[in-house]
C-alpha cells in the first residue's frame, strides 16, 4: 500500500473503531442480555432463548406501550410539521425581513432549552393548583384542573411540550427555506391569479417537498427519543396512559421488577422496528 492510499485509513480506523465500540458494545450486550433471565437482584443468569420475546407477545402492557409509541410518533410529527409550515409561511408573508430575524431568534430559544428543563417548566405550568396554564380554568370554575392526571389529555399535554420545543425551531428552518427559494415562480404565481395562500399551497410548499420530508424524518427520529420528557412529566402515567416503549422498558428494568433481560428484549424489538420502518420510508421517499 503506498502512502497516498494509506493516509485516509490512518485517520479513519481510530474513529471508526471508537464509534464501533461506543455504538455496538451496548447494542450487542443488550441483545445478549435479552436472551437471559438476568435481574438486578442476582449476579447469575441463565440463557432462556426466546422466552422473553414470547412473553412480550402476551403482555398487554407491552402492546399498550407499542400503541402509545405509535400514537406519540404520529401526533408529534404531524403537529410539529403543520405548526412549523403554518408559522413559517405566516412569518414569510406577514413579517418584514428584520422582524423575521427577530422572531427566528426568539423561536430558537425553546429548542435550546434542555428537554428536562422544558419538561419541569411546563409540568409546573400545568400544575393543577399553581400552574399558569390552568389558572383561567381555576379562576372561572373554582375547581383545580389536572390535565396530566387525565388519561385522555396526559399524552396531549406532553405532546404539546414536544411540539412547543420543535415546532418553533422547524418554523425557523422553513422560513429560511422559503427565503432561499427563487423569487420568480412566486412572482409568476402572483401574476397567475393566485392568492397568497394558494401561492404557498400550490407553489412554494411543493417546491420544498424534499427538505420538508427530511425534516419530518428528523422529527420522527427525534420523537423516538422522548424518554426524558415523558419521564419528568408523567412517568408513563396516569396508569399506563403515556407509557411509551422506552418508558415501559425502563420501568421493567429499573423501577418495578428489575428484569433487565425482559427490558432488553423490549429495547431490541424497538431497535428492529425502527430500523425496518425507517428503511422502508427512506426508500419510498427517495424513489
Amino acid at each position, binding site marked *: 500500500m503506498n502512502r497516498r492510499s494509506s493516509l485516509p485509513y490512518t485517520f479513519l480506523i481510530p474513529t471508526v473503531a471508537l464509534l464501533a465500540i461506543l455504538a455496538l458494545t451496548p447494542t450487542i450486550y443488550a441483545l445478549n442480555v435479552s436472551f437471559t433471565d438476568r435481574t438486578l437482584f442476582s449476579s447469575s443468569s441463565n440463557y432462556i432463548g426466546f422466552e422473553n420475546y414470547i412473553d412480550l407477545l402476551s403482555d398487554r402492557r407491552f402492546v399498550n406501550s407499542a400503541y402509545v409509541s405509535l400514537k406519540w410518533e404520529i401526533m408529534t410529527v404531524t403537529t410539529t410539521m403543520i405548526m412549523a409550515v403554518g408559522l413559517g409561511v405566516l412569518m414569510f408573508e406577514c413579517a418584514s425581513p428584520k422582524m423575521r430575524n427577530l422572531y427566528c431568534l426568539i423561536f430558537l430559544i425553546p429548542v435550546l432549552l434542555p428537554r428536562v428543563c422544558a419538561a419541569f417548566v411546563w409540568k409546573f405550568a400545568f400544575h393543577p393548583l399553581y400552574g399558569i396554564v390552568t389558572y383561567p380554568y381555576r379562576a372561572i370554575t373554582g375547581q383545580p384542573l389536572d390535565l396530566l392526571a387525565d388519561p385522555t389529555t396526559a399524552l396531549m399535554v406532553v405532546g404539546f411540550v414536544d411540539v412547543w420545543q420543535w415546532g418553533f425551531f422547524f418554523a425557523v428552518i422553513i422560513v429560511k427555506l422559503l427565503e432561499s427559494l*427563487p423569487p*420568480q*415562480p412566486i*412572482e*409568476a*404565481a*402572483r*401574476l*397567475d*391569479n*393566485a*392568492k397568497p395562500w*394558494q401561492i404557498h399551497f*400550490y*407553489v412554494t410548499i*411543493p*417546491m420544498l*417537498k424534499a427538505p420538508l420530508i427530511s425534516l419530518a424524518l428528523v422529527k420522527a427520529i427525534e420523537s423516538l427519543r422522548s424518554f426524558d420528557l415523558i419521564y419528568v412529566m408523567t412517568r408513563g402515567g396516569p396508569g399506563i396512559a403515556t407509557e411509551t416503549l422506552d418508558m415501559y422498558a425502563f420501568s421493567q428494568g429499573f423501577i418495578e421488577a428489575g428484569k433487565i433481560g425482559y427490558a432488553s428484549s423490549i429495547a431490541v424489538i424497538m431497535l428492529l422496528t425502527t430500523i425496518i420502518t425507517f428503511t422502508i420510508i427512506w426508500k419510498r421517499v427517495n424513489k
Partner: protein
Amino acid sequence: MAEIVCQNIKKNYGAVEVVPDFSLHVEDHEFIVFLGPSGCGKSTMLRMLAGLEEITGGQLMIGGKVVNDLEPRDRGIAMVFQNYALYPHMTIRDNIAFGLRRIKVPEHEIKSRTEDVTSVLGLGPYLDRKPTELSGGQQQRVAIARAMIKTPDVFLFDEPLSNLDAKLRATMREEIARLHKKLRTTTVYVTHDQMEAMTLADRIVLMKDGQIEQVGSPEEIYERPVSRFVASFIGTPAMNFIELKVEQSGTEWFVVGEGVKLTFDSSRFDVSVGQQVTLGVRPSDFEAVSEVTDRTLAGECDLIEYHGDQALVSFRVGSVHLHALVAARQRPSEDEHVLFQIRQNTSHLFDATTGRSLLKQ
C-alpha cells in the same frame, strides 16, 4: 387590449432614487421596447407595471383604470420572465393551466385553450414533461404559452431571450414578432440588446439612469439620436466620435481638430463659431476614396476585423481610433495608409459639454 399611461412615475429604494420621473403613453396594440444599459431602471419600470414593485409616486393607468394599488393578478397583465420562472414541480400542462385553474375556468375550456396555445407554440409533444426535461428555448416557449393563455390586456416581457444562445435568440425573436402581429396585444418588452429592440419595437424607449433619453421608432432613434449617449448605444459597430472645434471662413463652416479639418453643411446644425463639438460618424457612413477632399479623413490602418461580407477597418487619425465598415473584398491591408470620406448628410454633431445633438429639428 389596453393602453398604458405612466404619469410622473417615481421609484425610490430608501434614499436611492431609481426612477426619478417617468412619463409615457403606450398606445393600444403597440409594441414598446424599454432599452438601456443594465441598471438604467428599465426592469424596475416593468416590474412596477406588473405590480411586483410598489410605485413610490405618480400614477399608472392600464386600460383607463388607475392600477397603482392593485394586486398583479387584478391588472389584466401577463409576464414572461428572463429565467422562465416555471413551476418546477408541475408538468408543462399544469404550468400553462395554473392561472386559469385559480380563477375556476371549467376544465373542458382549460383543455381546449391549452391545446390552442400549445399548437401555436409547438409544445404539443411536451405537455406531460417537467420543465427541467425541456431545453431553454422550449422552457421560454412554455412561459410564453402560460402568459398567452390568460388572454391578457398587456404582455410584459423581462429580457426573455437573454438566457438563450445566439441562434435560438434569433428564432425566438422572430416568433415573438409573429405572435404580436397575430395577437396585436399591447406589449412592453425590456431588453439591453439593441438588435431585439430594433427588430421588434414599434417604438423604443431608450433609458439612462432611470430617465427617458429618447422615445421614437427604431428608425428615428437610429437616424436622429438626440444625444451622444443614444448615438453610442444604438448601432453595431458603434458610432465613431471625434472631439473638434467649429470654425468659419467665408461661407464655409469647418470642424477642426488634431489632423482633421472637415467641412460640413451648417444648415443642418445649430452651431456657433468656436463651439466645442463631438462629431459622430457611423462606421458604415465612411466610404474609401482615393483623393483628398474637404470631407476626407486620412490615417494609418492598424487592424482589420473580417466579418465575412464586410470588414471593419480600424485606423488612427491624430490620437483617436476610428472604425470604418467596408466591403470585405475592397478592404485595405494592415499598415496601409487609408483615406475615407464621410457620406453626405450622415454626420452628427453633439455639444461637447451637454452631449445633446445639434441637429436642427
